[in-house]
């Protein structure tokens, strides 16, 4: 129903995309992640280039219905267990606690959700209140990710965020009080006017909240955002400063006991984001909502981009799939290198050769050069150092 007959195949249809005997689509198929996209925001941040719109009553209701219907219909065809669910956006809270919990209940009912899943909801400090948190906790959410970004209020204002640091501290406190024991905090570096000192201050303040997980991203000026339009006047740290800031963050978090498990993600042992790891380990996931992506049975899908088109598609039994791509083994091999090198776990060259029947030697030769430059390390597996993470684009491009 929710696919274009004849044009695109629904995720569960058709044979596995397969090119070689030893490789069957996704690297591992044992469990599935679900991603639900809520593209509503109260106000767009100055740096955001995602598709999102302001929430408005009737539309959110229809959207919630559409999601529910899509999830239900899909569930009928999924056998493998679901072990992670992720509500992202936008601002998921804009859908309303009632709708969010309803959707989660549908998932738990219709899918074979494992006993100890990881269920994440992204939250903004200003739209987090005790009532919302309690409802989510009750419905089964056990992880929240809060966009804090900085502990310096002027910096937050320059980002166009609607909260101040005090609100963020309060939100984390509330979450703990309500019983959340797995909290992730977003930190941004390279903000307008940010200095190495103010960055260090933000890191230390955030560490005081003792989050189980920290994601840190360098501010990137995307075309046609308000920040882009004022970029010439904005006092933005240059690339070299951003590099320094990144290394500072790595050091501070390492000292505080966090494991730097992915280029931009740090976690206390055992608190890595199970859902996001699926992206980097080429495990299957299904995306619901506009612009959401899926990778299932060796095919990647993306959904239509606009909320209206998505709702239309669901309500009128039309299409919600925008693009579909069969991923060949050699493409998977490329993806494998590209994504595994984002992890400090790295990859085992023997596994590479076994999975893709391709020689790892040309890549290994380059990796040995990088090792000499302190950018990569081999200890049974190849991985990039933190300096290497910073140059991972160039490095990966040279390997594939």
């Amino acid at each position, binding site marked *: 129903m929710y696919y274009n007959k004849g044009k695109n195949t629904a995720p569960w249809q058709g044979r596995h995309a397969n090119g070689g005997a030893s490789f069957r689509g996704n690297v591992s198929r044992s469990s599935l992640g679900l991603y639900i996209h809520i593209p509503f925001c109260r106000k767009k941040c100055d740096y955001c280039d995602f598709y999102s719109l302001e929430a408005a009553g009737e539309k959110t209701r229809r959207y919630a219905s559409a999601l529910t219907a899509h999830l239900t219909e899909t569930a009928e065809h999924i056998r493998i267990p679901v072990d992670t669910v992720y509500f992202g956006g936008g601002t998921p809270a804009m859908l309303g606690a009632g709708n969010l919990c309803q959707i989660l209940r549908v998932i738990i009912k219709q899918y074979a959700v494992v006993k100890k899943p990881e269920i994440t909801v992204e939250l903004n400090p200003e739209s987090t209140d005790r009532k919302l948190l309690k409802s989510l906790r009750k419905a089964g959410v056990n992880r929240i990710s809060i966009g804090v970004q900085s502990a310096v209020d002027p910096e937050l204002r320059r980002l166009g965020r609607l909260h101040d640091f005090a609100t963020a501290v309060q939100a984390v406190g509330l979450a703990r009080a309500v019983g959340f024991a797995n909290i992730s905090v977003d930190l941004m570096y390279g903000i307008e006017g940010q200095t190495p000192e103010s960055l260090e201050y933000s890191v230390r303040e955030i560490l005081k909240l003792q989050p189980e997980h920290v994601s840190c991203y360098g501010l990137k000026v995307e075309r046609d955002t308000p920040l882009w339009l004022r970029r010439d006047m904005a006092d933005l740290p240059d690339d070299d400063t951003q590099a320094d800031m990144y290394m500072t963050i790595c050091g501070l978090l390492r000292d505080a006991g966090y494991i730097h498990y992915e280029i931009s993600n740090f976690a206390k042992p055992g608190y890595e984001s199970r859902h996001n790891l699926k992206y980097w380990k080429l495990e299957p996931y299904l995306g619901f909502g506009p612009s959401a992506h899926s990778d299932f049975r060796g095919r990647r899908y993306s959904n239509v981009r606009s909320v209206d088109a998505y709702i239309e598609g669901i309500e009128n039994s039309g299409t919600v799939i925008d693009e579909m791509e069969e991923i060949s083994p050699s493409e998977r091999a490329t993806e494998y290198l*590209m994504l595994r090198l984002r992890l400090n776990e790295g990859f085992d060259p023997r596994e590479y050769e076994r999975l893709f029947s391709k020689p790892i030697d040309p890549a290994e030769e380059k990796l040995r050069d990088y090792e000499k*430059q302190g950018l990569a390390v081999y200890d049974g597996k190849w991985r990039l150092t933190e300096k290497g993470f*910073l140059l991972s*684009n160039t490095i990966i491009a040279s390997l594939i």
Partner: protein
Amino acid sequence: MQDISKIRNFSIIAHIDHGKSTLADRLLEICHAVDKREMEEQILDNMELERERGITIKARAVKLNYTAADGGSYVLNLIDTPGHVDFNYEVSRSLAACEGAVLVVDAAQGIEAQTLANTYLAIDAGLEVLPVINKIDLISADPERTIREIEDVIGIPAQDAPKISAKNGINVESVLEYIVQNIPSPKGDPDAPLKALIFDSQYDPYKGVVVYIRVFDGVLRTGDTVRMMATGAEYEVVEAGYLKPLGLEKSGELGPGEVGYFTASIKNVRDTNVGDTVTNAGRPTDHPLPGYRKAQPMVFSGVYPADGAKYPDLRDALEKLRLNDASLSYEPESSVALGFGFRCGFLGLLHMEVIQERLEREFNLDLITTAPSVVYKVHYTDGREEMIDNPLNFPDGSVLEYAEEPFVAANIITPAEYTGNIMELCQERRGVFRDMKYIDTDRVELHYELPLNEIIYDFFDALKSRTRGYASLDYELKDYRRSDLVKLDILLNGEVVDALSFIVHKEKAYPRARKITEKLKENIPRQMFEIPIQAAIGAKIIARETVKALRKDVLAKCYGGDITRKKKLLEKQKEGKKRMRSLGTVDVPQEAFMAVLKLDE
């Protein structure tokens, strides 16, 4: 043969976009030289059309038959002047074939730089210049003001100038009447020995070279044996006749005052030189026509395909271009940095740019060209002399006794108010002042001797910009003079990049070296290691810049949707790499090579 009193030979001159081509189209239409259906493109300008129809005659000149108001049948020969009016020599030879010139001025824009430059060329060639006011249909047109401008600035009467709109076909016929009444008929003696001017030639795969001529004296007939006076070569005329927009009209003979063509199984355009005189081998004329100059390549540069695999395509393209460009020369050469390519000889920087553009546009080639260089005469310590056209072959101090560089005699015509500016410019370029005179109340002609290598880069652009476009330049090779010349090498990451080496006068070495290293630093992207950029004379480094090592090139977020996007990006990056040259360990984009050529801002 035609009645000479009823012949009118003329050219149309104008500033760009003032309506020259449109007027030409209209004239062709009125004289029924082509029918309306064929008038889709502008015939005189159009090479595409030739290719489509397989016709290889470009209509550089056309014979128009016109019945005037007085009832007489006139022959109007319209000779087109080449697009680049700064190629003075070719233009001057086309004008030499005419008695008059129709000057088209846009009634909205008025007189502009190229208008003046062209007009002076025509006046200096002794032509009757007839102004025509065009684009009167535009709201902003001011014909009266334009007439006044013409009279004041150029100094020719314009009260009776036809006011027309070539685009809308308004009053165009009056231009033809104007031509008949005001351009003098040619003069010439049919019994005198043959004397005809070659103003262009074109290679045709079936007929060989088609030679375009204007006959001054005598008659050229099929079967005659003619001699090219500059080369002494003799040929038997196979065919002769007139030029039509889309073909040829055989007539068997051409007499005094007439414009047309002949063929003589000539294999190579190089055998027919623009400006040369054609005479009868058995009864040659005593005096060739004045103004002939041998086309001599003065500027050389290495031309390389950006993608080495396209070398054969470049070779084929140059071969095709050379068929119709007698002044283009080329020879294979190779460079450690750039691979295999050609050393090409051009008449000047403009010629080089035209050829480059044609190679890129018509043959779809991505090119890297080295800095243009002139030919130096080096004297070795062992007494030998050699002409060096490639900086790489310039000997180093130990075997070099001394070197000489080519000097040109340059003629610059400028409005008087800019004289000071120009003199300053010439001095900056190591020019030697020779003469200055007023050619009328407002115009000055300057004679300077300048080193050729100082003017090949951008002297012309600098000249134009210091005179708001009004100056004109003409130069020819004068002699070779001893000079303190050095070879400047550029090193990237410690290795010499042979393609960037060039010869420069000692005085200019330091400033040039600094500019080049700065330009390179701006244009070479940061890489995983620090890149020292150095300029050296021999072993001595005289300028240096550094490209800092790249520290950050990372995709911070890589979740579901990002993965597909990222893969596409990686693919694009791989394509982008193809436009880079790996010079040793350094990746240099083509733009960096280009930037080094445009040094003086």
